[in-house]
């Protein structure tokens, strides 16, 4: 999976020193909550799309909600996601992509 050039795989912060293996890849996170959120995103995208793997997840927004696009080869899956304060999914909304 392609990750941000530097910082936490979820929020790009460079604080912290928390590592976890996700999808067979060692990833840096600023804290365990970001790691939980990231793993939840991956699980949710795979469940909705049936993809075996994800090339990249692009995100904008902040801790109160993120607009995301997951990419797999030439396919794209767009959604909005919001987490509770423990990193569990509170809102997940698929956004239809215009063709």
């Amino acid at each position, binding site marked *: 999976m392609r990750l941000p050039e530097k910082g936490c795989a979820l929020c790009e912060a460079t604080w912290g020193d928390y590592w976890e293996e996700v999808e067979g890849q060692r990833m840096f996170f*600023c804290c*365990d909550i970001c790691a939980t959120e990231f793993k939840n995103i991956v699980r949710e995208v795979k469940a909705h799309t049936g993809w075996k793997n994800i090339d990249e997840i692009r995100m904008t927004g902040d*801790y109160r909600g993120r607009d995301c696009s997951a990419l797999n080869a030439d396919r794209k899956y767009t959604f909005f996601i919001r987490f509770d304060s423990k990193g569990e999914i509170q809102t997940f909304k698929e956004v239809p992509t215009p063709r």
Partner: protein
Amino acid sequence: MKCPTCGTGFDSNDFDALGKHFYAEALRSDGRHVMWLNRNITKNKTDATALSGLFERFFALGSGGLQGWVKRRFIEKFYGPRPHPFVSALQNPSRGTLLGYVVEHQHFLRQWVRSCSFIMARTDETEVVMYELDNINTEFGGAGPDRPSHYELLLRMGESLGLDRTKVLATPPLPDTKDAIRVWDDICQDYHWVEAMVAMHGLELIANRNLRKEGASVHYFDPEILKTGQVTDATKAFLREGYEADVGHSEEALDLAAKFAGRLGVVDDVQATFMRSIDAFDNYLMARLERGKQFETA
């Protein structure tokens, strides 16, 4: 001064110690401290010395004194370019949003009375006792049949939207509401009463219509909805109460607290505790939205 995240105490204005504390917590990836840094100071790692400097700047009061600082931080968090999602939803509120408000806010207001009572019990200042008494009556006691309390207006709003008050009162709070209430209860029981005052009454800024003049991106709700038939009369009555509250009066608590914070030498504790309180409030407002979803499909 105190850590705004965990409450650990330091000498007054010892930003050096506060910077070192956060730096050490970030090194061990403590989620609460790291997130606090990300959201309030910077996402980019610095060394401990630079971090202390950033904290010093963050807590500098500026020309507006404690009141100005409190408002600035509040606007940043809830009324910036991306307002809090609950505030966005309240601009043109759906039935679900309003019922989410009713169900969770009932718990907030019950805690509100406890909080104000702790402040009264722990201060010797008559002005403060009088202020809190008045506030408790407005929020909870009411002043006879013509002046129902904010609590009563809230329950009536729920009824006007088809939700019986017995159901509202029987519904336990969502976890984020419960956690926030615990934060406020702890602050009001254990911290200095001036800290408690700003932690609680600072939250009333959410409905303060002066904030637009001070840089807020939107009002709490679009005031036009008070004029149209878009929401029920009981909803208008509830929203109007906060909106039309005497603007000078709404900041009286902050003025009182600023006076005593200076006199008693607890300004930096008040600031740290206020940050803790608005973090809890942030989560609590999210809980209102979360509860609202239950009514959107019904």
